[in-house]
């Protein structure tokens, strides 16, 4: 009655379809951006068409400084994201499972969250100077909240019967987090990671841009100051591509860890 079967070909076919559609979407987007400046919807001098951006991008790919900047940006991004995700998850689980603590910190959190990173720039510079550290602090500050709020809501979302089951079997705090709270919060966590990943990337670039710590953002600023419009757009496209790649990776992870979730289940049933 039970046989472990290889993945049915339909699923791979579907994956192929989805990749094709995704590529088509990007292509269509690129096409719009190619055509719009060419027919004068936006001035071509300030919004170069896709083809020109890509040529410039190819040129950038040949430069060592670009790769150094890219690696630096990725390094800051990865560090910041990691810290934000770990800290955000830990604090989120804590606050989500201890309503009193949550209530006690809510006002403070609401006060701190809307403080824009730009306003914090002088502060971090005074502390760490215009270094990667400063950018990192900004990245963590912004991405942490995204993660924390998602996790808090995710923890609340645990099915009450599942929670009672865990309690009645006297699962300890750690086991409850590990086997009950974490899995049910996981869909929220994954969304949190996706949000935090983008925010971290945005703040890495912004931080570099404004503070001047080395990386893509600084290159963008430099290109802006030099009126090198195409380089600016080429670099922005790079951040966009990074965004797409990051999402692909996260989706892949999600497919694995959320296989049991209704959102994934429904798609695996042979219909």
């Amino acid at each position: 009655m039970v046989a472990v079967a290889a993945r049915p070909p339909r699923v791979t076919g579907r994956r192929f379809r989805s990749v094709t559609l995704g590529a088509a979407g990007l292509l269509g987007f690129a096409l719009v951006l190619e055509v719009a400046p060419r027919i004068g919807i936006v001035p071509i001098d300030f919004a170069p068409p896709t083809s020109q951006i890509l040529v410039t991008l190819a040129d950038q790919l040949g430069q060592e400084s670009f790769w150094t900047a890219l690696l630096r940006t990725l390094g800051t991004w990865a560090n910041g994201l990691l810290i934000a995700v770990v800290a955000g998850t830990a604090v989120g689980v804590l606050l989500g499972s201890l309503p009193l603590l949550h209530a006690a910190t809510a006002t403070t959190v609401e006060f701190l969250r809307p403080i824009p990173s730009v306003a914090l720039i002088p502060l971090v510079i005074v502390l760490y100077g215009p270094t990667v550290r400063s950018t990192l602090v900004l990245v963590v500050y912004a991405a942490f909240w995204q993660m924390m709020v998602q996790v808090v809501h995710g923890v609340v979302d645990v099915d009450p019967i599942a929670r009672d089951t865990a309690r009645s079997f006297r699962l300890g705090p750690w086991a409850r987090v590990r086997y009950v709270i974490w899995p049910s919060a996981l869909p929220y966590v994954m969304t949190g990671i996706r949000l935090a990943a983008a925010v971290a990337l945005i703040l890495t670039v912004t931080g570099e841009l404004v503070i001047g710590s080395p990386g893509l953002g600084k290159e963008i600023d430099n290109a802006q100051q030099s009126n090198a419009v195409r380089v600016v757009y080429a670099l922005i496209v790079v951040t966009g591509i990074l965004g797409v790649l990051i999402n692909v990776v996260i989706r892949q992870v999600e497919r694995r860890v959320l296989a049991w979730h209704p959102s994934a289940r429904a798609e695996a049933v042979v219909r």
Partner: protein
Amino acid sequence: MLEVRNLHKVYDGHGRRVTAVGDLTFTVPEGQFACVVGPSGCGKTTLLRVLAGLLPATSGEVSVRGTPVTAPPKDLAVVFQEYGRSLFPWLRVRANVELPLKAAGMGRAERRKLADEALAAVGLSDVDNAYPWQLSGGMQQRVAIARAIAYQPKVLLMDEPFAAVDAQTRADLEDLIRAVWQRLGVTLLFVTHDIDEAVYLGQRVIVLSASPTTVAEDLAIDLPATRDQLTTRSDARFTELRGQVYARIQKVKAPASEGAPA
């Protein structure tokens, strides 16, 4: 031992105030198999949740094995009425059964052995690797039972645990639970809607009244300790006891029947 003294429970919120349990007092001695029957909505589940330390009583005292209940007591297992939602959808069947054992710090090999035994006992040896939501309702319910058995509790609370299985399987499970009860000497509180089942299984049947809930009847079942589906159920004493419970329930039901089905 389970002690319930003057238990009173009111739900209040979202524009609704319900006295789920009026005034309930009874004691289940250590190692007894007690069945609870009562009309739908009379507060059986509420009672079990209070006993399991999942819900605070509005007033009254509840203690399990001598300790007043404020949190889930040690060595207690519950089979929930909502069996489907009490299984963790992210864990496969075996992992679901093993989880409480793991939390109790049991070694891998022993855990596995107990889980395998329990799954075999409920007739699910071959689905240990499936997710709960890949199973039929009855199978899910059996997984929940297997989890409780594998845990080897001292006190076992079961809320209509056989509601979703077919007659044959139900009979088998009844015998299984009696065997487990005898082997482990657990104190068992068993909620059921099936009067025959209550009489067949228990040493005692507690009949609850409709809301506001009290104990309407507390009947000792003096059938022999070794029971079997054919002989016991055709026993004259069985029929008599069953008749008594039935009559009692009819009476209980009557006053509340204004709103009863047409």
